[in-house]
């Protein structure tokens, strides 16, 4: 991607209010042509509402969005033609086959005849499901449904692809396939807006990232630029069997400790789309942000030991988007 790339999406002071609550509160950013732009934030941060306004589904309370030179409020039809949307939900018809679903969504974007059939075949190839095209969506696994969900959004070769949490609740293999697909689409020239609360995915895919929380963009830039916000702070992650009372305050009182949070472990809370419910995990992940992790780690372990906590594992990481978010908000992305 060239540094001189022009903005294909410009979001300016975008606001969406539902009653007194501002779901999106003065968001501004540009997406440059040919880049993968990430919008990273916890659930409820305003990512989906922002995407809904960019895709003309919701009218902004105020502010402006320009996509490929057209305004979402004044020329929504042109905006919709330029966009492909992959919603967070699997927006497909379960009793129709993948082929029938793709044909329907292609027709909704004005495709027909031979071109439609070519694009359907191409989308199935991209999804890696050409051999199962005539099976009903209801017979697919969660990951396969997600892949067809993406295929339905790219058939008309949009200039910009909006992907809202496209990997929620699927197995690692399907997740990898989807991430590689996004990379490949971007290589073919498609600009991508990718929202997620998975820091690893955003770091893997995106050229630039906007971090969003409580409806506001709190940091924006290339991933290295964002990491520099944290400076040389490392994240000490301690996995505990349970959280003794008062231990967080004791950790915060340690010298050289900048912030301390406690959350449920990463994927324990999320059920997958196969209907399998995760086992109840009562363990706790304590994250300590410190510039001197080498010294602090011993103090942290000592404090936890005195408090009677059973330590399951300890991990020290260099700054990443998770630590950026922790640094900026004092909480985890999964809070």
């Amino acid at each position, binding site marked *: 991607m060239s540094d001189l790339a022009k903005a294909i999406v410009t979001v300016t002071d975008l606001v969406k209010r539902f009653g007194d609550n501002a779901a999106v509160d003065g968001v501004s950013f540009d997406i440059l042509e040919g880049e993968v732009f990430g919008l990273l934030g916890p659930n409820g941060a305003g990512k989906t509402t922002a995407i809904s306004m960019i895709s003309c589904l919701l009218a902004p309370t105020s502010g402006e969005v320009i996509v490929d030179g057209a305004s979402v409020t004044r020329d929504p039809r042109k905006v919709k033609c330029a966009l492909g*949307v992959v919603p967070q939900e699997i927006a497909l018809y379960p009793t129709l086959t993948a082929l029938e679903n793709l044909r*329907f969504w292609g027709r*909704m974007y004005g495709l027909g005849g031979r071109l439609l059939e070519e694009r359907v075949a191409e989308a199935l190839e991209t999804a890696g499901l050409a051999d199962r095209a005539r099976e009903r969506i209801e017979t697919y696994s969660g990951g396969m449904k997600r892949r067809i969900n993406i295929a339905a959004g790219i058939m008309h070769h949009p200039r910009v692809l909006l992907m809202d949490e496209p990997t929620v609740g699927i197995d690692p293999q399907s997740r990898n396939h989807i991430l590689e697909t996004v990379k490949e689409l971007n290589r073919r020239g498609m600009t991508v807006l990718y929202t997620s609360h998975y820091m690893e995915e955003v770091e893997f895919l995106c050229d630039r990232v906007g971090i969003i929380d409580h409806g506001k963009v709190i940091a924006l830039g290339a991933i290295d630029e964002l990491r520099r916000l944290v400076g040389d702070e490392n994240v000490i992650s301690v996995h505990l069997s349970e959280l003794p009372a008062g231990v967080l305050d004791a950790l915060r009182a340690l010298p050289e400790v900048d912030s301390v949070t406690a959350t449920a472990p990463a994927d324990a809370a999320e059920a997958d789309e196969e209907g399998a419910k995760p086992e109840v995990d009562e363990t706790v992940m304590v994250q300590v942000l410190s510039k001197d992790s080498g010294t602090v780690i011993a103090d942290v372990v000592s404090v936890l030991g005195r408090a009677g906590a059973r330590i399951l594992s300890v991990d020290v990481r260099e700054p990443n988007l998770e630590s950026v978010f922790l640094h900026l908000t004092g909480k985890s992305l999964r809070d």
Partner: protein
Amino acid sequence: MRWLHVGIKDLTVTVRDRGSLAILIAMPMILIVILSSALGNLASNLGKTPVAIIDLDQGRVGAQVTDGFFTDPQLTTLFLAQRMTDPIEARALVAKGDLAGALVVPADFSRRLDTGRSSKLTVYTDPGRQIAGTVFRSVAESLSTRVSAASIAARTSAYYVAPLRVRDPGFVYGVIGKAVQSASETSALSAVQVVESTAARGTELSTLSYYAGAMSVMFLMFGAMFGAFSLVRERDNWTLPRMLMSPGTRWEILGGKMFGVFMVGGLQFLVLFAFTSALGVRWGDPIAVGLIAVSTVAAATGLAIFIAAVAKTVRAVSGVAQMLIQFMAAIGGSFFPVSQFPAWMQPLHYVSVNGWSIDGILATMRGASAAEVLPNVAALLVIAAVFFGIGAWRLRWE
């Protein structure tokens, strides 16, 4: 043409859903067979026979003919009589099947009989209810015979008693009274003639025919419920928002959803029409039936949008739809013929899709032409427009 693709997609989704097909197609078939077998010909003869009495005479003799329908224990057991003043309106109600018969006493009835001239009572009967019509006509003839005899006896007695110059009025009335009593017990006199006129054309409707129409209409309304389900589910499952994010307009998408409901309803009616025709139901003039069917399906389509707008969730759709559909079915005659309702209740069937539609279908089964069912078609289209207008105005898209 996005509306066409949305409609075809909805039709495909519905046809693939076995549960929906069972309710929309199999259930009405089963109910038509069960109800018609269980009730036989009872439906047209259940309870009291509704008749209208129009006494234009308002005189003594007219009252003798008509009062019995309201006071005589035997007649009130047989007939549910209502007084009306307009013979044309009464005839129209008989023609529609709302009344089994009507008796009209002419304006000069008392005067003609008192002056020794003959008169005529007019009876309208519904050929679709031959048994009830025959009983009503017989009762009218019986009453007319008694009135004739009494009238002639009274005049004859007065004629013979007058020259005797008897001064005791009690004696005179005694003689006349005995003469009247004696004359009333004969049936050979005919000062009053009963003229019968059939108010409607066509043949007697079987219970199977009745429920073929009534159940088809009721289950077309259930089709509306599934249409509302589809809209709300698409909203919840994000396929509706995804459509809204495509270049299609809201009107194209709503038009497509309506087209889908309309096609499902049309298909449903065609299957039920074919099934009941195979059982021997004669629906009548195909154009008239087609007009009623299309306007009924249009009303069901409007109802689907209305329900989806009023109810925000799938559960709410189920509750609102069942309440509306069962209310309209009950007052509109889907369960029992409207003619079996109390007189005050019968006009209520016009506030339902079922009432207008079943009226129209029964009329076509009795031989009505397309022109004759146009008022029903118009009423159904107005209901469709009202439902659609409110629904489109109140529909929540996101």
